[in-house]
Every structure is written in C-alpha cells, then in structure tokens.
C-alpha cells in the first residue's frame, strides 16, 4: 500500500478531532445543565423514594451484577460473528470485482468461501450447532 504523504493528513483528521471535542463538550454540558438550573433555583428539589431508586428499563433492579448464562451462547456468537464478517467482506469485494481483477477475484473469494464452509461443516459435525 502506498499513501501520498503530501496530503495534509493532520487537516483531514482535524475534522474528526473537532467532532470529538464537540461531543465531549456536549456531554459535559448535559451533565452540568441541570446542576446549573438547580443552582439558579429554576428546578425544585423534592426527593421521594421512587424518584431516587435506580432506573433500569423493563427490569427489576435487584440482584447480582454478575449474571450466569449458558456458555453455549458463545459458540453461537462466535459462529455468527464469523459469517457476519464474511457478509460484510462481500460488499467491498463485489464493488471491486471488475476489469482485470475479475477472474482473480472470483478464485480468491472462492477459496475464502471454501475455508469458511470447511469451518461450518466442522462445527456442524462436532455438534456445535445443537443446543444441549
């Protein structure tokens, strides 16, 4: 890979830095705003047990933070991620598949597919796809 260093890299990334700074400032502002309003006296303070309890959408908030769940989930997650990445990988490949690279691209992607299919067959045969 060759990159032209004469392009103003700092300038291009500067825009991202600007967004980063803005987002940090915005977050700080959101935290400080209610405090400032309270200090000015615009917001009344009337605490009650319901108001001060921890809020979690749709769940009882009582219990341990470390929850157990079936580790079989990981197998599914890993296999899912694998094929998810394959799908993501296919989009840039499909766009780039033209001109002189056509045959070469097909062969290479065919090999890539083959390796993944072997992996899938392996997982299948070993029973990784069965929920026990």
């Amino acid at each position, binding site marked *: *890979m*060759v*990159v*032209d*260093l004469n392009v103003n890299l700092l300038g291009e990334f500067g825009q991202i830095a600007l967004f980063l700074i803005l987002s940090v400032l915005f977050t700080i502002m959101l935290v400080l705003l209610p405090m400032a309003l309270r200090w000015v006296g615009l917001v009344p303070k009337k605490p009650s047990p319901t108001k001060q309890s921890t809020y979690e959408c749709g769940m009882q908030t009582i219990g341990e933070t470390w929850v157990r769940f079936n580790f079989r989930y990981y197998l599914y997650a890993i296999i899912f991620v694998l094929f998810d990445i394959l799908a993501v990988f296919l989009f840039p490949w499909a766009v780039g598949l033209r001109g002189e690279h056509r045959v*070469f691209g097909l062969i290479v992607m065919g090999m890539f597919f*083959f*390796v993944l299919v*072997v992996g899938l*067959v*392996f997982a299948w*045969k*070993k029973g990784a796809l069965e929920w026990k």
Partner: protein
Amino acid sequence: MNWYLISPQLSLGALALLVVLLDLFIREKRLLAVVGALGLAVPFGFAVSLWGHEEATLYGRLAVDGFSLFFCFLFLGIAFLTLLYSTDYLPRMPGRHGEYYALILLSTTGFTLLAAARELISIYLALELSSLPLYALAAFLRDEKSTEAGIKYLLLGAIASAVLLYGMALVFGLTGRTGLSEIAQALAAGGIREPALLFGVVLLIAGFGFKIASIPFHWWVPDVYEGAPTPVTAYISVGSKAAGFAAILRVFYEAFGQPGWLASDWSLTIAVLSALTMTLGNVVAIWQGNIKRLLGYSGIANAGYIMVGLAAASSLGRSGVLFFLAAYTLANVGAFAAVIAISNKLESDLIEDYSGMARRAPVLSLILALCLISLTGIPPTAGFMAKLYVFNAGVQAGLLWLVIIGVINSVISAYYYLRVVKVMFLNQPASEEGVPSSIPLRTVLFITALGVLLLGVFPYGLLHLAEKAILLLP
C-alpha cells in the same frame, strides 16, 4: 498472477483443510498423522522445484527467493518431525487428534507465509495465522497448567502483536509505504530523521522479540513451555523462534538496512539485548529442576546467541543465523522427543527423576545427551559449528565484547546441560524398567542425532545453502 509461485503455501493450507475434513469422516485417527506427514511431500516438492526463482508474487507481497524457500524447508521439516514425535503423546489427549494435526499444519502455513512476506500487513497477517493455532495448542491438555499456559500465551501474544502493529503504524505513518523495499526507498530518499521512526523500529524489535523469546519479552516462555503439552512445547520452541528470526532478518535488512545511522542504531540495540538475553537465560537455567523449564531458558539463551549474528549486520552473520537455526532445531527437537518418551514413562518432567536413565534406556539417553552437548556447543556437533560461525561473524563486525560474553555464557550453559547428562549416566536408577517408545518417535531421534553429527562434521553443504539463501537480502 502466477499461482505456481505460492504453491508451497497453498498446498500446505489445503493439506490442513484436508486433515480437518478427513477427521470428520474417518475413525482411525492415526491415518490422519500419516496423511499429514506424507502430504508434506507435496509442498516440499513444490518448494524444491521453485528453488532458484527470484521473484515476487501477489502484487509484490510474497517473495519467492532463496530466503523464503530455505525457511520453507526448515518449517516443513519441523512440521514433519512434530507429526512423528506427537504420536507417543497423543493418547494423553483423547478425542481431539484431528484438530491437533490440523492446527500444527495451519500454524506451519503461517510460518511459511511469514518467511515469504515482504510487506508489513502481510507479515502481520502471517504472524497471526501462525500464532492463533499455537495459543489453542498450548491449552490442548485442558488441565490446570495447560489452560494457564494457553491463557498466558494468548494474552501476552496479543499484547506483543499490538505493540508490533503500533510499530508498523509508525513506520507506515512516516514513510507512507507498507512494502519493505518501498520503505527502504523512502528512507533512502532522506529527510525522515525523526525520533518517531526510531520508536517505531524499537516497537518492531519488541513485537518480534516476543516471538524469538528475547529479554525483556521472555516472560511467557517458562510457564508456557512447562504447561503446554510437550510436543507443542517443542514445536513452539523451534517454529516460533525460526519464524521470528525470519521476520526480523527480512524486515530489518530489507527495510531498515539503510541509512547507516538507522542500521547502527538497531544493530546496537540488538547487540545489547543479545548480551542480556543469553546471560539471563543461562544464569536462570542453572536453578531449574524441571527439564521443560530448563529447555525453555536454554531456548532464551540460544536466542541470545543467534542475535549475535543479527547484530553483526553482515552477510556472514545472516547466513550464520540460518545455520544456527537449523542446528538449534535439530538439537532441540531431538532433546524434546527424548523428553516425551521419558516423561510418558515416568509421568514426571523433573530432572532428578531422570537418574540412571542411561541404564534403563541407553539409546534414548545417549541421544538426549548428544542433543544437550550440541546445545552447549561442544564439537563434533552442529551446535559447535553454529556458534563458531555466528561468533566469527560477531568478531569480524567488531563486536568482540559481545562474543566474549557469548563464550563465557557457553561455559556457564555447560554446567546445567551436563548436569542432566551426569544425572542420567552416573546416578543410580530408581527402577530397572525400560522406557517404551514408538517407531515414529525413534525415527525422529535417529534423524536428529544423525543431523546433529553430520552438520557438526560436514557443515559446508548447509552453509552453502544458507549463503545462497541470504544472497538477495541487501
């Protein structure tokens, strides 16, 4: 696109996939080892037929030259021996033999790609392809120590590859190139004299230093060597080290060989690391009571000796490195094969339990002793010739201080290597029972013993090959 040029790597990867698929459909798992070991003849044949080519393929990312083919032969040899000596150990790991063979072959594919890669991203990918199977293999026994070894190796390996990647990013950021020869051109054009470049180079040394187990990146070695299954330990100790040196040779000579100030900076860094590595490796090895840990520290010390050849920054030093790697591989594989057979019988890796082994298993003990003598560097063994060439290169490059440290270290190392020999030959045996070993393992012992002696007496054939192999590196 000439597919023929990457046929060794392609056929090796295909062999690994074939083993994975066969494992699913056949019951007799020994057949897999036979398929794997015999199948290695295909990539080997391709590599032999490619010898003499000086080309690059895959848009210049993979080199097909003497250097990559020399390492291809070395790695194929290591994989072949590994498949053979694993047979005695595999009954301890029931039910997962197919995966074991496939992971070994996949990792070897990564190694051969690494030796051929001449572009930073390809180097990184090849490194990961070779490392990931090793992490899984280290944890293959699934007992407490083996799992600990696997986790430690995985975590520290991940840190090392992150450091390596950061170094690559810095080099890429300053030169705008990822191809090694293009980086060299950008550096030769001048103007890049920034501390960040040196920082990037140091990070690259750190990342590869993890692979070759040099100080101060050696912390994983003793624990992983002890906990991992013994055949895997042997494979990591020779394969990972050779791959690390292949990558260092390729990257540092091809990309950072010029300008002079940069080359002298990194060769001085490597020289200092080399002195520290061999001294610490040897001194700590004296206290080890476990033979696998002892061989681990001996591996660290040997990395130090090999780095003398790197620091010499001459063609003599480079061919010395290749020769040393081959000699170290033979001696280490032989020693580990003997350890596998003995520890299978004793169910212990403690050196004190080896007492009187010469009477219980004369041939095995003799070959183990021969391999340890070769690791010490006493004639007429391969280890002696290897040290001679590497130290000679050091002296000619004006690194006399480093060579003196190396010679002193060799004397220190004789103490702990010969202590094992003494325990085996002079102490009384605990029992009179013999040590059984399979025919494949005996074959490995025979090959390594023969190789160690042959290279010690007639080193010129291999040395000539090594000199041809490094011809293209600037």
